[in-house]
């Protein structure tokens, strides 16, 4: 009598190690793609600054020169030159905003706290709202990637607040401890939970960045028109300080 063989016998393979290796490879690839994306954004922002902004600025000055060189009777020409100068100023500011969103070089040039305070300046200009961040601990020696992530979180949230129809009530605190750095932000209702949780590309990218740093990203709506954002980033044992560059 011949014994039937189990067709699957001897074919069982433990793929745990292979899967773990594959996950590690994919994670590594993801990090490299993220770094490449950041590098491209940085390059693009530099090129925009060095070419477009410089050219627009020089053209605006040229226009201002023409404006001042006009004889007193040339009212119509003065009016039109003044309008062109104003449009160029708007184009420069807009391009700077795009550059800042691509790569927030202000963090490197000014330091995290000053760069965040610079972001708050438009609130003062538009609404007369003075937001004083509550800063505890040294923020200037944070690793660059941490500082950039915190800045971008504030940037995205404030962009949403800027769309508010009434003066936003923004509260912002930054606290550094031995374990990490924590950002807390309270925003008006115009910045909805949906906006901040990924319906916008930048919101989704922000979440990704936080997760990549093994951080925590919590959002809550108090039901009274305010969204609370808490972001915690653990710090490596030896944090690399921000290498400050010339703007």
């Amino acid at each position: 009598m011949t014994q039937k063989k189990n067709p699957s016998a001897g074919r069982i393979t433990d793929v745990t190690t292979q899967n773990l290796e594959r996950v590690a490879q994919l994670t590594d690839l993801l990090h490299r793609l993220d770094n490449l994306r950041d590098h491209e954004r940085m390059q693009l922002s530099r090129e925009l600054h060095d070419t477009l902004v410089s050219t627009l600025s020089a053209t605006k000055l040229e226009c201002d020169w023409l404006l001042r060189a006009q004889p007193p009777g040339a009212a119509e020409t003065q009016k039109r030159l003044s309008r062109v100068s104003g449009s160029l100023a708007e184009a420069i500011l807009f391009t700077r905003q795009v550059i800042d969103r691509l790569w927030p070089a202000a963090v490197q040039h000014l330091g995290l706290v000053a760069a965040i305070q610079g972001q708050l300046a438009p609130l003062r200009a538009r609404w007369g709202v003075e937001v004083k961040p509550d800063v505890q601990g040294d923020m200037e020696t944070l690793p660059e990637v941490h500082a950039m992530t915190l800045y971008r979180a504030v940037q995205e949230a404030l962009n949403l607040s800027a769309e508010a129809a009434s003066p936003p009530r923004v509260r912002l605190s930054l606290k550094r401890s031995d374990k990490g750095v924590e950002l807390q932000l309270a925003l008006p209702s115009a910045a909805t939970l949906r906006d901040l949780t990924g319906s916008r590309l930048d919101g989704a990218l922000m979440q990704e960045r936080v997760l990549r740093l093994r951080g925590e990203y919590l959002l809550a709506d108090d039901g009274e028109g305010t969204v609370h954002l808490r972001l915690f980033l653990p710090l490596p044992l030896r944090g690399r300080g921000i290498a400050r560059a010339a703007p």
Partner: protein
Amino acid sequence: MRANANASGNAPRIMVVDDHVASGDLLREILSMEGYVVRVAHCGEDAVVAAREFKPQIALLDVGLPDMDGYALARLLKSNPALHQIRVVALSGYAQSTDADGSREESFDRYLLKPVDVEQLLSVLESLS
């Protein structure tokens, strides 16, 4: 003409430091039209050398210079005994809160946001000269 001549009847001397050649030259032309005596430098090192000879009363610095941080250049100019009364105006693309950083804030007497508003710039220069 917006430049106020000093007690000896001389027009104020202004040094413009901007790495963008066209912008620096245009600022010189505009300020010269207003009666200032202007010299332009395109990097920090040239500015330090030019300042020794030109002895500007006011320096107009682009904060983002290729070879030197504008803050460092401002401190360098102010530390020169021959220029102890120099007033330094920063031109920067980054909005900065007045109390953002005391140590860097001290480097400059005024801080102007780019793009330069010529009227605002002339008012600042008038108040400093």
